């Protein structure tokens, strides 16, 4: 039904290449997200699907129909705008009825459908109010009602919760997911907030500088990033560059720049890709996968153990974040506060500690970027 296909879509504004040769298929009924930093081109892609921008090259298909040249008011696509764009001079009822009025549907039928839609989003009592009389969260629900009443094949959401505060944001995301389940059409969601994208999506694509960096299920991308950008953009991670010095089945030995007792550390890691000896790679190690303790842990050989000194402690309620210095590098470690973890006595600044993790918890990225030194390259 609402399958969307982008074929080699590019868009440039003058000299600036906003979208560069993007090809993608979004399945019918999916909740698909585009995630990326500001200016990466994700909004431009969305606008091209909506029809507000025309691709410089490439074609766009909905259900195999080429819609590239069709203007926005003739596409069966509707958009939820970032600031909702409710018409200030019309009542809530009129806003929601707008699309139906354009189609010249009979008055009685319009009323029926609008009432039903308002009840669906629980805004029926506000039908005679004006947009400036309702709150942000309510505005968003009306924006959704106004769009869905037209029974589009695809719903586009442009940073829909960006204008709301944290608690409300969390609620609205859940509401959006519920509506998606209820209505069943394809949703395309654009955001720069990776937490949002991961929680909401069936599948997602990471966009950087106009190109798709990685597409997949959220946990795929999180656990198995295909590039330094993906690893670094989603969540926090420790990036450890190194050279492959040994390969054995699905595991490799990596010689790193980390120094311990005068020697260069060698770490073990699982590796499902095909690498050659001598290859320059980067290990991505999520902070929550690292355990921290005062005493040397008594664990099997499939754990990597290193020593370091605590440089910073951030108490965050659910967990504590430690910055641990290992030679020239700083590791970020998340330690969740659960009694089951041994050695839960509060650690202090300047303490020497052991960091350890299972060798299947690190992921091999076949890329190296020496400018991201320190193993700590989480953006602010």
């Amino acid at each position: 039904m609402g399958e969307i296909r982008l074929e080699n879509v590019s868009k440039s504004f003058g000299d600036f290449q906003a979208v560069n040769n993007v090809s993608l298929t979004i399945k019918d009924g999916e909740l698909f997200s585009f995630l990326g930093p500001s200016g990466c081109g994700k909004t431009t892609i969305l606008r091209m699907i909506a029809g507000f921008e025309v691709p410089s090259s490439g074609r766009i298909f909905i259900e195999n129909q080429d819609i590239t040249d069709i203007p926005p008011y003739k596409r069966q696509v509707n958009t939820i705008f970032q600031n909702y764009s409710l018409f200030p001079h019309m009542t809530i009822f009129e806003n929601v009825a707008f699309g139906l009025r354009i189609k010249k549907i009979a008055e009685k039928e319009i009323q029926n459908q609008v009432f039903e839609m308002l009840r669906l989003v629980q805004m029926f009592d506000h039908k005679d109010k004006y947009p400036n009389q309702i709150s942000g969260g309510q505005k968003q629900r009306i924006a959704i009602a106004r769009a869905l009443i037209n029974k589009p094949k695809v719903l586009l959401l442009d940073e829909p919760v960006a204008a709301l505060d944290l608690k409300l944001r969390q609620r609205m995301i859940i509401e959006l997911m519920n509506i998606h389940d209820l209505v069943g059409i394809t949703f395309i969601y654009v955001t720069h907030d990776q937490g949002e994208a991961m929680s909401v999506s069936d599948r997602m694509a990471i966009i950087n500088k106009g190109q798709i960096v990685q597409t997949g299920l959220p946990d795929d991308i999180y656990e198995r990033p295909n590039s330094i950008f993906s690893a670094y953009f989603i969540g926090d991670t420790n990036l450890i560059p190194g050279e492959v010095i040994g390969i054995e089945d699905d595991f490799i030995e990596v010689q790193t720049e980390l120094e311990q007792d005068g020697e260069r550390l060698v770490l073990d890691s699982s590796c499902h890709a095909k690498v050659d000896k001598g290859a320059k790679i980067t290990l991505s190690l999520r902070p929550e996968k690292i355990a921290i303790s005062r005493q040397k842990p008594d664990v099997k050989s499939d754990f990597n153990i290193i020593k370091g000194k605590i440089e910073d402690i951030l108490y965050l309620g659910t967990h504590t974040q430690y910055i641990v210095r290992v030679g020239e590098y700083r590791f970020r470690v998340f330690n969740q506060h659960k009694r089951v973890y041994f050695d839960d006595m509060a650690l202090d600044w300047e303490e020497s500690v052991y960091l350890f993790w299972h060798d299947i918890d690190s992921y091999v990225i076949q890329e190296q970027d020496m400018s991201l030194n320190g193993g700590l390259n989480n953006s602010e």
Partner: protein
Amino acid sequence: MNNEQKHEKKKNIYSWILSLPAMSWLIFFFLIPYIIIFIYSFYQADIYDIKAILTLDAYKNVFSPEYFRSFFISFRLALITTFLCFLLGYPAAYLIARSSEKIKNTLLVLIIIPFWTNFIIRIFSWRIFLSPEGILNNALIYFNLIDTPLMLIRNDFAVILVMVYVYLPYMILPLYSNIEKMDFTLLDAAMDLGASPKKTFFKITLPLSKDGILAGSILVFIPALGAYIIPQLVGSQDSLYIGQIITYKIKNIPRNWPLASALSLMLLILISALMVLFYTLHIKFKERMIVKDEDEK
């Protein structure tokens, strides 16, 4: 009175003193003259001045068909002028409002420069352009489009043309200022919901610019009501507008200051009524556009 209140009072007195110069000036030279007009309207006319005799002659005259007609055509002129300024001015203002920053400034300057050249001179240049021996007629004859010169001057056509010419910037600027502040994503939203560009214009753009249209209309309509020099220089002398009549009665011999005063008062009342109307509409329009800034209700 506690310390804070004393301080407040001091500030208030201080401000009041600062306002005194301008306030007294305006009271003396703006308000009081209208009281004098009021008083004069009840005196008897004399060739040069007024006779110190109280009479209602002026008012008897004012309510005669002749002057009523003059008010009527002045009102009509203002209406037509405002409407034509709107037709020409709206697209122009819209274009400027939707242009990029750089172009915006250039376009605005282009509109404003003629505005800065002398008023009389601009009217004069139209006279030259439109007169039977003028450039337009000469060109038309030269290209064999007409045989005898067209009577383009000394009539209502010329008056309306020059009125629109002079008052156009007064319509464009407030319109521009209003449209510029519009949330253009609303237009995207309308198109997204199926409205063609034409429908979007009539259902969204135009209604949202109501306040701007109102502002532009006030700035054109009210001054246009009192038009004097334009009809004087390019209009026919057969039907006189109210501005012309008032001026004749003040300046030309035989004078009739009471009548002029009475007519001025009538004009003033008419304008006041219009201002009240405009203000009420303005308040109504502004209400809808205020955006609340809350996230939780």
